[in-house]
């Protein structure tokens, strides 16, 4: 029987997958096609959404950028088996490479199963690992397997998972809590969302195994409220798992019992910091607590608690099923297994990428991502969002591994990977992230509340052409002080985008400050448009398009721009057919 799956992660939905699904459903019914139609999560190739996967017994036909108008042709194909009608929709070979070059463990079922179907999950080994853990293994043995696997926290810090589990297991006190941090807030990061939307049972199973390992009575997913689809699918998955007995009393007939619930956040980035998350869970204002004590000793309601990120949990069942050694076989000495990245920015093929540790940034950016759009020059990649840093093009061969990435000044982070090309102003990029952290600072500690604000003010004046001699040094000093004095990870890492851009793109800062010039041409206040008299044919098109009448001249002779009147909208450069408008 034919199986049709429509990618309906948030990426697919926003590209119009819902309408495509509805049209397909009508067509299947009307033409009485013998096919099952279902949704699946994000396949990873967000740049090709909506994606329709058609499975026959032996092969997969992947149709991309499908619109409702394409449905009759798809129906023809389904009826006849002749794929000529859908030839134009079939995924191009180079785009297929995007998936083929990946190794999917955390994302193993994403885009493959129907996330709203427990049966589908179970058919893909769902809850096998949980059964194995609770019926065949002691909690200590589970922790041991995780230790062997080398799994480290995928939320960004990279702390060994077994160590945290063990600490919580050893900690006195009852009840204990197992918490999943699904408050994914980095701009440009959507790994966790994709996992929950695409394979919620993998998360539930991983958490239950963790709960068993530490001896928790309840598992809680703290998920950001901005992920409604993820919450909806997770709610259904929890209900299904409860009904099936995977959650609740005497799981698999053992003495292990565990409750499970969701807590939706209220939109504060800082609640991704584990102690702020706990405060928020307790109904308090989301502000970090002092550490120590660590949550393993005193966490939720001051009870032993363990917090891991979504992707970390998504790996757990696979590790239990395949053994810690199998996981540890991938990666480098320092970093084991795979890592999921959300690839965005000026890249040709953006989406979700899961690769073994030890690959290089070049593998991700060029082999998988296909390089820059419009073949512009690659400039750098921002890793780890606002807490991370920028790795410049000359370090493109850096190996993806916790230590190696840290050495560049960036961090592995939770997986946000924003690609920048020559048209990206690095000062502006740093400013963008500081705008974010300044807004998202909880306001508790001085270093973060006022320090980031002052950083942002200095960056803003540099972008506005008001930078002063000494501003770079002032930024560096402020950054050092903030890192040293801030209370939590948010503040301690907030200076990273500034520090790394200064480290690798100091000349760009200097150009802004000394020459009042933005080399990337992104800072409007510093951009100057002029007309090259040798190229201008005097067609007057720019003059007619200029919204403020700043361009004048006689037809047939070179035109000129009045710099005072110009509002730097750039329309003249866009419309000029002769490339006569210079920007810089």
């Amino acid at each position, binding site marked *: 029987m034919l199986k049709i799956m429509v990618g309906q992660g948030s990426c697919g939905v926003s590209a119009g997958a819902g309408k495509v699904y509805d049209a397909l459903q009508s067509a299947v019914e009307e033409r009485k096609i013998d096919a099952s139609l279902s949704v699946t999560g994000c396949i990873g190739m967000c740049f090709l959404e909506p994606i329709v996967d058609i499975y026959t017994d032996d092969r997969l036909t992947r149709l991309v950028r499908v619109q409702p108008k394409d449905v009759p042709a798809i129906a023809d194909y389904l009826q006849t088996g002749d794929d000529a009608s859908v030839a134009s929709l079939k995924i191009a070979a180079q785009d297929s490479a995007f998936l083929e070059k990946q190794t999917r463990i955390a994302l193993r079922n994403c885009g493959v199963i129907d996330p709203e179907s427990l049966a589908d999950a179970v058919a893909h080994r769902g809850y096998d690992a949980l059964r194995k853990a609770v019926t065949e293994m002691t909690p200590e043995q589970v922790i041991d397997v995780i230790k062997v696997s080398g799994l480290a926290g995928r939320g960004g810090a990279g702390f060994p998972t077994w160590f945290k589990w063990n600490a919580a297991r050893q900690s006195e006190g009852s009840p204990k809590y197992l918490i999943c941090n699904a408050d994914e807030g980095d701009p440009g990061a959507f790994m966790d969302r994709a996992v929950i939307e695409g394979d919620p049972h993998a998360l539930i199973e991983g958490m239950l195994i963790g709960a068993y390992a530490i001896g928790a009575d309840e598992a809680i997913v703290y998920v950001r409220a901005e992920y409604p689809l993820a919450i909806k699918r997770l709610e259904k998955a929890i209900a299904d798992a409860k009904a099936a007995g995977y959650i609740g009393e005497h799981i698999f007939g053992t003495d292990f019992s565990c409750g499970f619930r969701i807590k939706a956040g209220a939109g504060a980035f800082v609640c991704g910091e584990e102690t702020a998350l706990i405060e928020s869970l307790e109904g308090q204002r989301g502000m970090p607590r*002092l550490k120590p004590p660590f949550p393993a000793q005193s966490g939720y309601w001051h009870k032993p608690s363990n917090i891991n990120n979504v992707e970390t949990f998504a790996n757990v069942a696979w590790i239990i099923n395949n053994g810690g050694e199998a996981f540890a076989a991938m990666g480098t000495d320092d970093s084991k297994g795979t890592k999921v990245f959300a690839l965005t920015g000026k890249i040709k093929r953006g989406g979700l990428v899961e690769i073994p540790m030890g690959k290089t940034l070049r593998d991700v950016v060029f082999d998988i991502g296909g390089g820059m759009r419009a073949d512009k020059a690659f400039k750098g990649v921002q890793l780890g969002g606002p807490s991370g840093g920028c790795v410049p093009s000359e370090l493109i061969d850096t190996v993806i591994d916790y230590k190696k990435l840290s050495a560049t000044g960036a961090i592995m982070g939770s997986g946000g990977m924003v690609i920048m090309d020559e048209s990206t102003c690095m000062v502006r990029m740093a400013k963008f992230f500081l705008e974010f952290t300044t807004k*998202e*600072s909880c306001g508790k500690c001085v270093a973060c509340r*006022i320090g980031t604000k002052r950083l942002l003010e200095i960056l803003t004046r540099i972008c506005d052409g008001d930078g002063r001699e000494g501003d770079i040094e002032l930024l560096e000093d402020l950054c050092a002080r903030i890192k*040293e*004095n801030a209370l939590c990870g948010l503040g301690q890492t907030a200076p990273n985008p500034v520090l790394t851009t200064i480290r690798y793109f100091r000349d760009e800062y200097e150009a802004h400050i000394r020459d009042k010039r933005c080399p990337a041409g992104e800072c409007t206040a510093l951009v100057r448009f002029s007309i090259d008299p040798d190229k201008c044919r005097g067609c007057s098109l720019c003059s007619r398009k200029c919204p403020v009448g700043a361009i004048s001249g006689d037809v047939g002779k070179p035109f000129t721009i009045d710099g005072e009147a110009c509002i730097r909208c750039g329309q003249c450069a866009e419309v000029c057919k002769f490339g006569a408008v210079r920007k810089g």
Partner: protein
Amino acid sequence: MILLNGKEFAFVPGQTILELAQANGIEIPTLCHDERIEPYGACGLCVCEVRMGQAPARLMRACATKTADGMVIETQSARVERSRRFVLDMLLSDHTGDCIAPCSLACPGGTDCQKYAALIACGEYRKAAETMKDVIPIPASIGRICPHPCEKKCRRALVEAPVSLAALKAFGADMDLKENPFVPECKPDTGKRVAVIGGGPAGLTAAYHLRRRGHEVHIYDKMPKLGGMLRYGIPEYRLPKAVLDKEIALIGDIGVQMHPNTTLGTDVTLENLREGFDAVVVATGAWISSKMRVQGEDLDGVFGGIDFLRAAALGDPPAIGKTVAVCGGGNTAMDACRTAVRLGAETVYVIYRRTRDEMPAEQLEIEEAIEEGVQFKFLTNPDEICGDDRVSSIRLQCMQLGAPDASGRRRPEPIEGRFETLPVDSVIMAIGQKTDFAGLESLEATNRGTVNADTATFKTNLDGVFAVGDVTNKGADIAIAAIGEARKAADVIDAYLDGVEIAYEKPFVCEKTVTADDLADREKRDRAVMPVLPPEERKHTFAEMALGFDEETAKKEASRCLECGCLDYAQCKLIRYARQYKADPAPYAGEKSARQKDDSHAVILRDGAKCILCGLCVRACDQLEHLSAIGLAGRGFTTEVGAAYRLPLGTSCCNGCGKCVEVCPTGALYKKTEGCKNVAVDRK
């Protein structure tokens, strides 16, 4: 064991680094911690360098870090101090308030005007006098004659008119002088001896403050009585000498020994004073009238301004005739012209080369002189004083105003060929004063002919010899400037006598900008007008012209004060640490938070602009009073403390217990004083 600042200490399990340090007398600063409240860690000021084992030292918050065996802690390393300074720089860059009221900052003596005004408003005259005498030993005198720079900066001017701070000073001090006046206590005798040369405002002030510190002080003055220019330069109708006498007598009462009729260079020399005393303060003033360098200046009937005033004060005025020309536009010129009127001159001119707007004299004085019949010849400049042996007339060059000069005033320029001649019997030149260097020859002089003294240490080129007041550097200035200098010098000299070298340093303060719009809601209340003798009456008498405020007027006037200065200045930990760690927020100047004042509560006044978000008030309300009337709202830079739903505190469940006020490290919270004005506690 723990190694704390290089010394081994035993610790109690569970003890924090802060507690361990406190138990052993080591101070670690903190703004957000209170021992009754759970550690919170917001301010980050208590960071210390902490090392465990081989790991590199980290900055840890002392308030929250538990001690552990083998810890190595540094509480004052360069790294720690840098981090603390950063925290303070950041806090101050977002702190809006006036540590000290603008009036007080404008006063060269730093007199706490806000406080004495508040005390007068409350009827506490003795305490008001005590406040004044913290700086000025002769407030009743100064209150009468001071050109009051304080009032020029008084914010009440943005509402309608400044508070009459000078007149209030005179009032408060007069009230205190009436019976059993305030006499400060002096510290036990130190055995050190100080000689002060010159008994004017500077000398008296230096002597007064040094005596209070327990030193034996002798003042040497060449004139028959002490008081300097206050006695011999300021006419009786402005400052009755009986008032000055009383105040000087009180200085004598605390043990300052006075030696009038003792001229430096003849009766005593600098050298033998240096030998006989541990320190010498030169405060001889500027007693020579400047010359105008015009022809005829040496004729009979031409007098120097201060020479003329001194002769009048000594009761032996020169014969000035019926028509007098006074040259100059300053306060001395006003004193001279009005004294001439009182001595019986029928026509008195004031010759001034610019216009009334540019005159340095007080506008009120000009007004009063006009009322007394003085004629102002603006835009004229003496060109020649004519006469055979004696003055018969003065030829004036007519002037016009040109482009502004360095002082910002328009430069007077002669109109070529235009002159005016006035027949006069005498000419008084009140154009400036110079230093008399007699007896001071061993001191280094400036190119202005004054004594060269360091502006921060008041030291001269001779060890142990200090110089203050008009005799130094820029020369003659107003009395309160000399008093301010002497007050600061007293600290330096006191330290010197103790073998410590210090220099005066202008303390860091927060200041804010206030516009008329900010005060638009204030009720307009007229400034009290000083009652004076009518012109016709006062023209014929040297009796004091100002009649003084009555009690009711004074209290009402004092209550007009807007209380600009922070009422918690004395207890503010932020300013204390800011100075201790030499904070400087200037490089980080940027946007400040928009947190507002909340005066809605009956007893608690909340000034959000001074809040540093340490969270102590919120936690005290929760943990000590179990009320949670206030909480934090907003995020990041716009976070603020307030009642639920950002409603006014007055509408919340706050019971006014004041625990929040108690724990607030700054002036963001204040418990209102009932009835009268709020009086800040002493600044020291």
